[in-house]
């Protein structure tokens, strides 16, 4: 089966992981309109090509991001979720 390189645990069989869907940076809930919010919740780019997506190594409960080509299934890189990126709610 496919091997995925966990940033924490190294190369593991993909059955050890849980897929978390496409990564969407969350728009500021206060500033975006209802339609934009709905798009954030429900809509995806879903390309046949490169995406950034969530993965969890199930046994160690470790979440990380991967960049993968959804056509060839080639994983270009896996990486820890960056600190202080423009994510979700500001501190």
């Amino acid at each position: 089966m496919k091997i995925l390189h966990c940033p924490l645990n190294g190369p593991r069989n993909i059955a050890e992981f849980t897929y978390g869907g496409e990564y969407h940076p969350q728009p500021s809930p206060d500033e975006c309109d209802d339609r934009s919010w709905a798009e954030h919740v429900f809509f995806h780019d879903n390309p046949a090509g490169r995406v950034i997506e969530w993965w969890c190594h199930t046994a160690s409960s470790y979440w990380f991001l991967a960049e993968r080509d959804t056509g060839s299934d080639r994983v270009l890189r896996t990486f820890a979720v960056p600190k202080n990126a423009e994510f979700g709610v500001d501190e």
Partner: protein
Amino acid sequence: MPFALLKYGLGSDKPAKSHFSKSKPLKNHYDVVIIGAGGHGAAIAYYLARHHGITNVAILDKGYLGGGNTARNTAVIRSNYLSEESVNFYRESVKLFGGLSNELGYNIMMEDRGQLTLAQSDAAIRSFRWRAEINQRLGVRSEVIDRKEIRKLVPNLRMSEDARFPILAGLWHADGATARHDAVVWGYARGACNRGVELHQLTEVQSVEVADGAVQSVMTNRGRVGCGCVVQAVAGMSSVVANLAGFKLPIHTYPLQAMVTQPYKPVLTPLVSSPQLHVYVQQTSRGEFVLGGGADPYALYNTRATLEQKETMAAAIIELFPFLSQARVLRQWAGIVDMTPDYSPVMGVSPVKNYYLDAGWGTWGFKATPICGKSMAELVATGRVPQLIKSFELERFYRFEQVNEAGATAASH
């Protein structure tokens, strides 16, 4: 001996003519361009011609006729869904399926086998009762049955109480059926082509030209085609094609795997599904066992099969039918399915004017082929969204009004 065959056998020139339009250059403009020559695309074209007299239609497909999910699906026809809008919708589809061979003059080989879904938990029984109640109210034959009745329907099902997940009850759907999936798309395509619709295979839409918020034309590998309107019916590629027209969809695309065994003498009549074990099975008229399961765990545009899924499906089916351990696997394959948040399709208008959507068909597309064709044809012809598909409009997500359908798919997510 059916007369048609007798005539054929005694005749000398066979076959009389091609079922589909001969390959020819694309015109500059069509009233309707349908992107995708699968079951849905062909059905839409058929009903446009048949019900609305609209024949200046081209069906474009980057591959061969029906070569996408129509060729790959496990051909379960049923209407025992959960939400009212879905039940009404699929019920009409099953009705149309019943008369489809005669409508098309092409045997789609529909067999009324009945479909049994197994409850292996209390929660499942509750959910089945919900479905049965709604189904019955809306004229669909569904009932919750007990172990004794299950034994009568499927005597060789393992009913042991010390199984890991004993069978507690079942949802029996007498309207459940199967048909030859390829024949459906061929029959519709032939019917459409006979009425003047043009089928263009190996014709890939590479870009969609939008101006003033309305679709103007599509660019293909064989030239530009002006369009009065466009319908996209490209299961497995919906987001990719919608992206050409400039908008996104609430879809994640996954492989859906299946496999088939060698042919054996018949031992199983109904279609049987276990949401608990994530497997469903039918024995085809050729004697082969077709097995399906849940969608793959991660998004991928690829029809490769995995060993894990084969192992899971095999282990699951042997829990239900231990003797199937003797059956030999012939082939594994996969389709590519568009999964939506509410396990319901996306049908109707899109953000682009005159650009219509037939997408989000997940694991429920084949059974909807006739009613989808009919409804979308009506929309294209009249410009009005038929009541039957109103609940499936893309706009529902903007209103946070999902269809309440989770829990009614065959292998359950």
